[in-house]
């Protein structure tokens, strides 16, 4: 590191290497964790179905005042496994849309019992009140069924994919998501190229490359792990004002999981960095003073 040009070039490549290391770990994490299966597993572990069931029940109880349809008409047809299947349908449809860079195209799983309950309620109501079962009746019945599916679906969409899709957010994410493999390959190649450049710049004393790679890995580890540790220790995501319990749990648990994974990778990077620096220190000292033995005491 005696020549300033070598030093400056190494410093520039190292800065870039720090960011490519952070980038590659982030993209690898997205690759591994941002999949329909992982989100389905996470939702299932958090037992969101029970929370969703309670919310739907409360919604229909509140709505009884305006619609006159008792909550039991809907709730007797919904159970945790149906809610779970709706959750999965949303997650799978969203990831299909992300992969294919298109809009979400999905329909909730059919619930014959729900449709039957609504039909029975409408028919009983019409008979009791002498209401003629004309086209308007049929239209109202159809709209009630559609509305039931839409309301239940909106509660089951715990990651708010439908809202993201409606506002064009999902299409923006799909641009990144669909290129994730290409991006992974690109950042990994960039890492290799930068290390080769560091070797080239320090070709007269190749061992110095180990020092530069070590500090890059250490700094990348520190930059990635410090914010993650802060987010986790302060329970930062708990301060989000998401008022639906199921959505809150789903979103915060997903964020905590990603942050934990990000932190773990960066702590590993920091450890690798320290190890490389220590190895460099030992080898460098040996090369500087070959044949030196420790002083006998």
């Amino acid at each position, binding site marked *: 590191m005696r020549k300033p040009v070598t*030093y400056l070039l190494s*410093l520039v490549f*190292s800065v870039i290497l720090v960011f490519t290391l952070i980038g590659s770990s982030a993209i690898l994490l997205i690759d591994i964790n941002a999949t329909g299966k992982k989100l389905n597993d996470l939702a299932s572990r958090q037992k969101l179905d029970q929370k969703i069931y309670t919310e739907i029940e409360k919604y229909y109880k509140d709505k009884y005042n305006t619609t006159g349809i008792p909550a039991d008409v809907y709730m007797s047809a919904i159970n945790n496994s149906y809610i779970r299947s709706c959750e999965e349908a949303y997650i799978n449809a969203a990831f299909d849309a992300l992969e294919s860079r298109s809009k979400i195209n999905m329909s909730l799983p059919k619930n014959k019992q729900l449709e039957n309950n609504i039909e029975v309620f409408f028919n009983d109501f019409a008979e009791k009140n002498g209401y003629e079962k004309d086209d308007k009746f049929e239209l109202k019945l159809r709209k009630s069924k559609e509305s039931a599916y839409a309301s239940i679906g909106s509660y089951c969409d715990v990651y708010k994919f439908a809202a*993201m899709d*409606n*506002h064009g*957010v999902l299409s923006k994410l799909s641009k990144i998501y669909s290129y994730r493999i290409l991006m992974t390959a690109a950042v990994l190649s960039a890492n290799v190229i930068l290390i080769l450049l560091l070797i080239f710049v320090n070709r007269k004393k190749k061992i110095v490359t180990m020092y530069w790679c070590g500090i890059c890995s250490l700094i990348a580890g520190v930059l990635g792990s410090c914010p993650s540790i802060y987010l986790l220790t302060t329970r930062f995501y708990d301060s989000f004002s998401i008022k*639906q319990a199921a959505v809150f749990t789903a979103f915060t648990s997903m964020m905590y999981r990603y942050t934990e994974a990000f932190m773990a990778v960066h702590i590993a990077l920091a450890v690798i960095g320290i190890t490389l620096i220590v190895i460099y220190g030992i080898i460098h000292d040996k090369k500087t003073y070959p044949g030196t033995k420790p002083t006998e005491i």
Partner: protein
Amino acid sequence: MDKNTKKGNSFVHIITPFILLFLCIGILLIVIIKPYDKLKVYLNLAFMDELKTTPEAAGSGLVLRDNDIIEEYNGETFDNGEVIRPKFGEMYAVMKCSAFDISIPVYWGSSSELFEHGACQSSGSVVIGETGNTVISAHEDTFFSELYKLEKGDTVTLNTTFGEFRYEVTEKISFNKKDGKYVAPSYESKLTLYTCKRNVLGSADERIGVVCEPTEKKFYKKAGEALTN
């Protein structure tokens, strides 16, 4: 001499990680500001629906109503038609323009709670499609975070429950919040979009925005025809 060189070398070895750290932190801070703003907008858009179904929102007296806005209407359209006057807290339009890569919901009326949900149209201004000044505003850190990007000649599209309306940006404006010049009623049809001027040190009195002229009106129903939702 050798001792001095070794000392200097050791110093460089020790100081280099710190130099690298400060360089990276500096670059990271500069690079992260914009994506952080965008992420905030996206999170707002994704989770803003939550407030509508909660008892707290009901307790505040605000009744939010969302409409299904038709964004791709295939039927016959008319140059003249009838507008539907929305109720306070009703989402009756969706805005799209070249500066925003997201579609922004437009609510009728303005209150701090409504501003959390989208852009708000002053109820003192005219409904989209009518003759007069249509004034729409939103927070600069969320829905109108990229309003400054709009330039003369850019197109703004407003899809409503009753038609699609296109405007062209004709003027970039900047005014004090006490100055009512741009938000006042007018005889000619125009669309005024504005937001706070970004001020890192605190709340801003300055407003920035654009004035647009209508270029295309597509009503879904003729004037006088029955309108159904």
